């Protein structure tokens, strides 16, 4: 889908060629258009017309925000479907729907620091777990070797 959804409906109309309708009719149509953007009726008819562009700008931002919101909703839906399908069709799937929403705003310095510390702690925990697993395996193997060496003696 293409096109500017925020462009005034009559912005491209050549006023010289507007023979079919009066300028008052054009203004009535424009009033409805600006009211849809949040301009009060009295503001349109009796207010400062130079402020109308700010309402248009605000409307453009709102349209973009809505568009991003819908896109995000689609992304969450996709993720939910993917998780559900992976868990339904795969025995060994560890797919999990995110526990919390995706972060949309940039992290603050403090949050970045906390996040970094958490990553370091997680990594350290993984290293310790790996070392423990290695030690346990090593012990088992040593124990096995011991048993094996003792076997002939039994």
């Amino acid at each position: 889908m293409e096109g500017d959804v925020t462009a005034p409906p009559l912005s491209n109309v050549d006023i010289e060629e507007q023979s079919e309708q009066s300028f008052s009719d054009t203004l009535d149509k424009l009033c409805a258009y600006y009211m849809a953007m949040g301009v009060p009726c009295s503001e349109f008819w009796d207010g400062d017309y130079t402020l109308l562009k700010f309402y248009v700008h605000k409307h453009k931002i709102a349209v973009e925000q809505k568009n991003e919101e819908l896109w995000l909703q689609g992304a969450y839906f996709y993720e939910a479907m993917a998780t559900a399908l992976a868990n339904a069709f795969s025995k060994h799937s560890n797919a999990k729907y995110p526990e919390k929403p995706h972060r949309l705003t940039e992290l603050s310095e403090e949050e970045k620091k906390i996040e970094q510390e958490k990553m370091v702690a997680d990594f350290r925990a993984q290293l310790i777990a790996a070392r423990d697993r290695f030690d346990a395996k090593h012990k088992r193997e040593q124990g096995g070797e011991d048993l094996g060496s003792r076997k002939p003696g039994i």
Partner: protein
Amino acid sequence: MAKSDRTKIEFDYDNKHYCLMYTANSLKKLEQRHGIKFAKLDEMVFSAPEVLFRGAFYANHPAESDSKIHEIYTSLKRSAEDSEKEFDEDGREVDQLTQTLASMLSEAVDELMGRGEKGNVSWKVT
């Protein structure tokens, strides 16, 4: 609140301050009451400048009498005629008052039509 940058005509006459400007409402009244054709605005500026001047009173001084407006117009026109003359593209003489009224109208129409920033105007005023 954003600062307004619309064109206005401000003056004092008989110890009263006047601020002339156009709104969508004044444009509608200009067309409905005075038969101003916005499609032929460049012609209207020459054929009915006083009517356009009258239209600029609707926003802030709607109760001003026609005779008073005519008096003010004559007075302003006289002083405008004394100032330096300018000519439009067709070589027609334009006084400063008429020129200002024309640019105020042009600005109002453009802003209302949402093309104030683009400058995509297919009709010209002088």
